[in-house]
């Protein structure tokens, strides 16, 4: 039987208590060090991990001061497997497979995310109608275009990027409160080279001081206009890692939002290297067999 993450409340409380000293230490961290801690936490959610997520996308509006969908959300459920590679496991390889809707079942996306700014991330998609694996151009070359999208949602490969911190100027703007939590307000500004590959000229992050989780991110274009906003909520410990189980990204230009709900996340999974290859996209017999082995590790 699968381990229920919601049944780990006691573990969460203990872990939260253990993290209290970290909060004191954290006061002296530089903006760069905070970002490194934040990214380590991000990577931990996908390192040797098996997750099940629900991805919902809709046009949105504001009603009585609250964001809500202006239409029926399009919902997709997917399973994701990831693992860290390279120096200090700072590169990430992951594969995401759609489980629902039925018409898209089995479509998979393989991503290699590199820490080194000189290396462009890579993405491949298996398209059953074409009967082959297709490389996806995921970079962004100008401010008017979106980088590669995750299964048609507002989440893009750039939004899920980690590393490349050397290519940013990182400033601690202030210590403030967001969603009732004490946060660092940090801005990151890409250098000239990174700016050519990024849609954002400036990003402002609100990082929970105790849990190193982004509660809010604002992304700005070259004219200083906020074009995207990401909100993290339901911050809980899953397998000892603080995670915003519900992350919503809003495209303020198109008024379209996507929510990623982490339904399950299991870390410490022994993921074979062979699983994080193009074979998993094309060889359904191999994929299902290996996925069953991974799921069996949870029990």
């Amino acid at each position, binding site marked *: *039987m*699968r381990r229920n993450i919601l049944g780990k409340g006691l573990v969460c409380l203990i872990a939260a208590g253990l993290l209290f000293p970290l909060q004191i230490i954290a006061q002296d961290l530089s903006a760069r060090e905070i970002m490194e801690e934040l990214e380590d936490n991000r990577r931990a959610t996908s390192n040797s991990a098996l997750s*099940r997520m*629900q991805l*919902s*996308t*809709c046009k949105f*509006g*504001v*009603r009585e*001061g*609250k*964001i*809500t*969908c*202006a*239409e*029926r*959300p*399009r919902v997709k459920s997917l399973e994701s497997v990831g693992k860290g590679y390279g120096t200090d496991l700072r590169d990430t390889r992951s594969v995401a497979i759609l489980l629902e*809707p039925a*018409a898209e079942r089995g479509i998979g996306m393989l991503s290699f995310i590199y820490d080194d700014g000189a290396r*462009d991330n*890579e993405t491949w998609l298996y398209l059953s*109608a*074409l*009967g082959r694996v297709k*490389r*996806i*151009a995921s*970079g*962004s*070359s*100008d401010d008017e*275009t*979106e980088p590669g*999208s995750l299964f*048609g949602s507002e989440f*893009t490969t750039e939004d899920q990027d980690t590393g490349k911190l050397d290519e940013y100027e990182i400033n601690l703007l202030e210590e403030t409160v967001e969603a009732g939590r004490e946060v660092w307000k940090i801005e990151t500004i890409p250098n000239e080279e990174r700016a050519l590959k990024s849609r954002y000229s400036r990003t402002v992050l609100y990082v929970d001081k105790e849990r190193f989780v982004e509660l809010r991110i604002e992304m700005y274009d070259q004219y200083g206009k906020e074009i995207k906003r990401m*909100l993290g*909520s*339901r911050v809980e410990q899953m397998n000892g890692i603080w995670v915003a*189980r519900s992350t*919503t990204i809003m495209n*303020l230009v198109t*008024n*379209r939002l996507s*929510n990623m*709900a982490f*339904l*399950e996340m299991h870390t410490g999974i022994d993921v074979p290297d062979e699983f994080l290859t*193009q*074979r998993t996209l*094309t*060889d*359904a*017999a*191999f994929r299902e*067999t290996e996925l*069953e082995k991974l799921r069996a590790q949870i029990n």
Partner: protein
Amino acid sequence: MVLDDDVQFDADVDFGFDDDLFGAAFNEDSSASSASWLDDFTIKITQQFSGQINNHSVDIPSLFSFPREAELETNRLGANIRYQNAFAPGWLLQASGQIRSYWKDDYEYEAEGGKIDVEYRVNEFFLQRSFDQHSLKFGRQTVVWGETTGNSVLDIINTTEFRAFPIIDIEDARLNQWLLVWDYFGEDSNFSSFLNIYPEFNPPAVRGSPFFFEPAFNLTDYDRDSGLQFEAGTKWRKSFEGSDISFMAAYLYENQMRFEDPISGIGDAVAQVNDFFLLGFSANRAVGKLLLNFDLAYSHDVQADSFSFPGTASLANPVNLKKDQIGTSFGFEYAISNEQSISLGIQAQKLLDEDEGLLPGQSLINDGVFGSWLVRYSNTLMNSDLVISSTLQGDLNANSLLALLGVDYTVNDNWAVGGQIISITSNDASPLIFFDEDVRLAATLSYSF
């Protein structure tokens, strides 16, 4: 809670976020959902209408002219069924098929003498065994080579069948064949090899369809008693950062049979097949938002006189002349945004040593560089419920142009409707002259579950 469509968000005004907006996802009890054998099936039922709507006449200069009247061409109800089941560790059974029922005024109904006709076809049907670094697949399946989408010079392993203009994508018309496919997944690169001991050929046009022309002699299948026919090929693929490359080699039969007049002048046409060798190379390169695709094919001993219009067979030019051919496809894909994308594909081929073997006064059907180009644009609106797409396709010599505008609307998770309008213009240097000035409308209603 659903808002009016015109509600706008003001980024300068702070707002609250209702954490319960997507909270239902967390209420799901994963243990409560039980797997059913029906989960392995995906079924789509479609009713399609299409017809030529422009009353006009087609003039073949110095030959003849014939009227083209508006008429319904297809009125058919179909079901596509797909089944995939990983029934044991390392084993997979996959099958797909279709059933079509042709109603009144459908060309197949008319060809059957005014009777409702029902047709069944198995598309995929294969058993797969994967173990260690190997995968073996046996059964009806497709092998897709090449990087360029839609008109790759390397995508010639499987046969194709075009029955109606509303289906113009090669991936919709590709037929499965009985193949044994062996994939080897190495640490740095992969090999994929296939063997086909029953090569099939493009089927002749279905009687009554827009592509059907009454032949002078009955078109028959190839006489397989003359010896063992087989096809075999292998592909080596390796990925680099930002690029994938493949090399391939194959011994194949040309998918299009060539028909010769019967020696006695009466009876059936004589089907001729031609074997040839293919060497290929393909590569892609991602540059920012741009993806470049490239395919290169060198074919040894292809028929110089094969009439290549898809879905039709030739009775002309029984020259039986073999030549080498070089072909290339170049693809350019650009994602303008999450919702919009545009792609361009160009395919060009050339026979080498064109004049060699020609008798005085003879000329090749495909002289010089020949090929086609394809431009596709798609835009998804209304949270992907509405997809607007357009395709322009023509030949490199600017003798013909096919323009398509399509609209697909997803009503809900089960129901969808779609419409297409297709226009063709051509001069007499292209086989599409028979469809010059045709305008076709098509509508589909589908239910998926």
